[in-house]
Each structure stands twice: as structure tokens, then as C-alpha cells.
């Protein structure tokens, strides 16, 4: 019987989901740069830029956490439909925090590039 060296798919899947979970906040903060979005629109935007397949509902507890950390602020805006939208935007602290996160990301990118050659 021929010996096939296959990859460990389960391990890769788990790793991918950890990476996604760990970078979601960073992605959201980047999307919110310079523009405010309401929940549904924000998710659409996140999906447009990244191949992230998570349960969309997980984004809302995340937004709640970012709000508690005072990185984003939110406000309800009434609509003609009677069903208001909740708009999110970066706070000053959020902007400064994102800047720091980007620096770290650049560093990480460099070292990953070096070792994955």
C-alpha cells in the first residue's frame, strides 16, 4: 500500500479558527477607521475585505467588549422603518490603540516573512 503523507486537517482548522478569533478585533477596528458603520453594514464590510467565515452574531458581543474598553462608541439612530440602526465609530482612545496594534502587526509580519521563506 502506498504511503501518503497527508496534512493534519483538524489541526489546521483549529489553528485557523484561533487566528480568526484573535484577529477579529483588529480587523473591525481597521474597518472603522475614518468611517462609522451600523452593525449589519459593518459585518458586510468585514466580509468584503477578509475571507472570514465566522458566525456573524459573534461580532455583537465583540462590539460590546470594544465599547466597554472604550475603543469604540455607539449610538442608536432612528430610521423611517421604525427599526433603528446602531452606529459604531472609533473613539480617540480607539484610534491611538489601533495605531499601536498596527505597529505590532508590522513587526509580526516581518518576522513571519523571515521564518516562512
Amino acid at each position, binding site marked *: 500500500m502506498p504511503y501518503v503523507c497527508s496534512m493534519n486537517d483538524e489541526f489546521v482548522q483549529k489553528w485557523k479558527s484561533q487566528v480568526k478569533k484573535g484577529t477579529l478585533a483588529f480587523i473591525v477596528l481597521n474597518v472603522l477607521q475614518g468611517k462609522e458603520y451600523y452593525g449589519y453594514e459593518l459585518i458586510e464590510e468585514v466580509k468584503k475585505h477578509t475571507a472570514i467565515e465566522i458566525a456573524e452574531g459573534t461580532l455583537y*458581543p465583540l462590539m460590546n467588549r470594544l465599547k466597554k474598553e472604550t475603543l469604540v462608541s455607539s449610538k442608536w439612530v432612528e430610521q423611517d422603518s421604525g427599526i433603528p440602526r446602531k452606529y459604531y465609530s472609533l473613539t480617540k482612545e480607539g484610534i491611538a490603540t489601533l495605531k499601536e496594534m498596527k505597529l505590532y502587526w508590522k513587526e509580526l509580519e516581518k518576522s513571519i516573512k523571515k521564518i516562512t521563506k
Partner: protein
Amino acid sequence: MKPIVFKHRTAQKIYDDYIKRIQRMVADLPKEDRLDTLMEFNSHIFESISQSQPESEVDDLMEILEKLGAPEEVLIPLKAERKLHQATKTFNPIHVFKAIVLNIGNGIVYTVFAILYLFLGVFVFCIFAKLWNPDAVGMYFNQNGFQAIGVVTGQEVESGEVYEVLGNWFIPVMLIISLVWYLLITFLLKIKKSLN
């Protein structure tokens, strides 16, 4: 919250059911957070469904809800965080218990806390065991010092291997130990939480 009105009865039923599942998940949150979460999911469903055609309403709604995920799963972080906050603020044992269970997935440290609280359960159990079987429960010493808190066999006591030291004081002493233990580990939990 203003509910969404659907054209198809099936869609309406699926929607109502989903909203109920959210309500069940957020029932323990403060009123403001409860409403906020509901409104947020409601708005999401409304915005996505308004892009769909009436004839595909049921299918589209099912897809939207599937993408959103099960409320019982996606809302866990919200609940876990809230419970931890309540638990360490009020020292209420029910909140503490719920918080520990919800947070066990968030790292080994909560498993350690679960074990520490299990000790508390054992202390309380000893109090009841003493009432039930006064001669075999107590705090035991031998010539080397402290041996155990708990239940011993009659044989060990008769042979003089161990002797009980607290007598009727066992229950009050255990009550105090339990209380101090409880306050101590809940205080540790509070510190752990603030380090998160």
C-alpha cells in the same frame, strides 16, 4: 423593540422563535443590555431581509439566521462576562457558580477556581455530615499533628490512631472556615477578573 412583520406565516414563526431564543439567553443581563442586544439582532435581521424578495422570504430568513449563528452559542461571551462582573460585585454564590461554569472554556485558571469552589462544597457537606453522623465526622489529629477534616471509620478512632479535636465546636468552626474560604476565593476571582 419594534418587531419585524413578515409576509409569510412560516417566516414570522421562525423569526419569533429566534427572538425568543435571544430573550432566553439575555434574561440574566441588566434591562438595558437586554434590550440593546435584542434591538441589535433585530436590526441585523431587518437590514438583511429588506434586501430579499417576498417569494424567497422564508429561505432568505433561514439563511440569515444560520449565518448569524445560534444565540445559545454566539451570546455566551456576553453572558460570561456579565456573570463574572455580577459574581465578584455581589459575592452571591449563585452568580459565582454560573460565572465559573460559563468561563471554564476561557482558560485553565477558571478550572482551578472550579476546584477551589469544590472544596467549599466539601466543607459544607461536612457540616451536614456531622449532623447526620456526629461520631464519625470531625477534625482529626494524631501524634504528628493535623490529619483530616471529614469522615473516619470507627476502627481508626477506637485504635487511637486519630482523635477528634473540635467536638461540638466542629459545626461553628466549619461555618467560619467555609465563609472565610468563600470570601477569599471570590476575592481572588475578582483580582483575576481585573487582570483580564
